């Protein structure tokens, strides 16, 4: 009895000594309160299931290095998991061991993430639950708890703040403002359990999951071989990795602040293509703008502009596709898409102008009617003057 008690005390001490700072866990509320909402509680598990039997009214806390192996006792057991959620994967622990977090934790470095840091310790919810710290809109906030902490990250030699950078990106805007869950967050590109920074050469493969056409064109373009030989990251060179902002037409050009001008000037091969693309984008943008304004004016004046709007829609889509063909880094595929777009914008503008001209035509019709009316009025006036005078 006393030996068992002593053992518990020692284990308690060991547990306390190797436990990381309490803020590494997700703090708020007592464990038993939190556990009430836990998906494991709903499955019928209890405190004993993870902590073992309580001794002296106290459960032993689990050392940080023990957490992942403890979770995987069930979560890597396919037959066991099948009883609760047959579709749930059972390779998370295996993935974790390949990750940077997993490798360091295995070697005893406890200042890296383990299961409970991201999923929570006691109030664990399924990933699909919007309140889970690993639900897609909340992933970046969870990662930021460590990866935006300069003091913590500098110990590992990291100076930058990827979650904050990501927060400024179009992907963050899409996910957090528009609710577009197809937009990538940290785990989409880095993996969740097997989280590792993607290698320079594999970045393009990840981006091309969604940006299929851009990737296809890039792979066929002269840039691919060139970037590989230079050891340049493909998409990242122009678009960055975390702080991906909306690309602008002004990126294309031979002078500052165009991106191309980083390497290209008039003398380098490809200058003609760059200029062709730049001018094409400009013509498209200006053409669409002008058409939009004319159509708006015509609509305000009460004219029918549905057909014009449809044509402008087509022009707008060509603009989108033309911007995609920029990734071929050649003038021909670009102009093949852009030129019809310019023509369509011009057609939309013509429809709008025609509608406004119809207004002018109406005024001419009015002139005809006015001539008839004035003729009638003059004759009537004469008739009135020639009526017999009124007897007073």
């Amino acid at each position, binding site marked *: 009895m006393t030996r068992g008690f002593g053992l518990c005390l020692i284990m308690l001490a060991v547990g306390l000594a190797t436990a990381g700072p309490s803020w590494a866990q997700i703090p708020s509320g007592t464990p038993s309160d939190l556990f009430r909402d836990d998906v494991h509680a709903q499955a019928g598990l209890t405190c004993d299931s993870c902590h073992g039997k309580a001794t002296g009214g106290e459960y032993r806390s689990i050392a940080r290095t023990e957490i992942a192996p403890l979770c995987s006792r069930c979560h890597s057991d396919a037959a066991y998991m099948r009883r609760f959620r047959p579709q749930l994967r059972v390779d998370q622990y295996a993935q974790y061991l390949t990750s940077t977090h997993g490798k360091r934790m295995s070697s005893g470095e406890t200042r890296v993430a383990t299961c409970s840091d991201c999923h929570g310790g006691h109030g664990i919810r399924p990933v699909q639950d919007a309140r889970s710290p690993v639900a897609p809109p909340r992933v970046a906030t969870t990662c930021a708890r460590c990866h935006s902490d300069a003091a913590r990250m500098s110990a590992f030699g990291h100076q930058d703040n990827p979650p904050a950078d990501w927060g400024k990106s179009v992907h963050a805007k899409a996910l957090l403002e528009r609710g577009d869950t197809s937009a990538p967050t940290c785990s989409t590109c880095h993996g969740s359990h097997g989280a590792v920074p993607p290698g320079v050469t594999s970045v393009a493969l990840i981006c091309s999951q969604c940006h299929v056409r851009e990737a296809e064109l890039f792979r066929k373009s002269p840039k691919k071989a060139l970037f590989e030989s230079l050891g340049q990251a493909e998409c990242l060179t122009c678009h960055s990795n975390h702080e991906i902002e909306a690309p602008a037409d002004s990126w294309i050009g031979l002078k500052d602040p165009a991106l191309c001008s980083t390497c290209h000037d008039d003398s380098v091969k490809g200058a003609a293509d760059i200029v062709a693309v730049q001018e094409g984008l400009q013509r498209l943008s200006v053409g669409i703008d002008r058409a939009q304004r004319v159509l708006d004016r015509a609509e305000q004046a009460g004219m029918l502009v549905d057909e014009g709007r449809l044509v402008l829609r087509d022009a707008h889509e060509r603009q989108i596709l033309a911007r995609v063909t920029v990734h071929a880094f050649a003038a021909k595929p670009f102009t093949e898409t852009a030129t019809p777009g310019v023509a369509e914008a011009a057609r939309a503008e013509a429809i709008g102008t025609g509608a406004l001209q119809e207004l002018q035509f109406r005024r001419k019709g*009015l002139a005809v009617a006015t001539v008839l009316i004035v003729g009638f009025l003059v004759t009537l006036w004469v008739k009135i003057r020639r009526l017999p005078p009124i007897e007073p």
Partner: protein
Amino acid sequence: MMRLQAWLEERMPIARFVEAVRHKTVPQHRFSLWYFFGGMTLFFFFVQVVTGALLLLYYRPSASEAYESVAFVMTRVPFGWLVRSIHAWSANLMIAAAFAHLFSVVFLHAYRRPREVTWLSGVLVFFITFAFGFSGYLLPWNELAFFATRVGTDMAGAVPGIGEAVVHFMRGGKDVSGATLTRFFGVHVAILPALITALLAAHLLLIQHHGMSVPPSIEAAQRKHGRPLPAMPFIPHFALRDLFGWTVALALLAGLSAYFPWELGKKADIFAAAPAGIRPEWYFLWMFQALKYMPATVFGMSGELLVLVPVSVGALALTLLPFLDPDTPRSRRIVKTLAGLALALMTTMTVLALLEGSS
């Protein structure tokens, strides 16, 4: 021609009316020009009836189709833009002509005995004209009209006690909605036309019966000099001049429609916030502007009442004018002064509202 006339006369008692019209005369004096405004208002009303009936062939009175049907008329129906613009402009010109007609009758005291009933029917027609304008304005179901209607019906809520019930009745519910649209449509194309037809018929018949009123000052001068006033035969002299004025008005309507076409704007979104600068049509602007100057509460009552009560009292006084004016030179002077003040106040408020809106 004569045979046709005889055939008709045997079956319908038209000879009496034809004779009456043939002998109708219009007295000529320095205020005679004002005699034309009644007919001008009537002309605009005819234009409204015709263009309104034409629009009815294509308009759909439901919140989901009204806007689209008006857009359809304006863009796909040949000359639909013309019919719709004329209908909108003629409404405004009719109200302007009605104001001119009303004020001229007041200033020239044509409401005196024995024309009290003519006056009553005319005042009611006047109020109905405003109701036409208010109900018709909502029918395109565009943003401006939706919010203007909401503001306008809100004002009725200021009446103590029954105010809320009145608003509920007008709107067909708590808020302005598709129910309001249907209700306003029924009022605009059926109820008000029936009422105004009856009242207009009475008004016109009584005018034929009593003849044209001569202002008291002219009558007094006549008595002094003894000479009778020159009498212009209605047919053909006055009628041709009427026709002249009406043709000018027609040309004006066509010109306005071509150079200042009535816009449609955006479709009403009942969940959207009101855009800045919402205001009613110009003939309601004076009340709208006056309300803006009132504090929110006065002695525990709504500040809006400070405007609504005088306006209501004024409207009542206007209706009962023939009975309130004992027709002495002094009382007539008071009437003219009060009318002048009212006109000045309304004009000032309207101008202020327009200036504020354009700044």
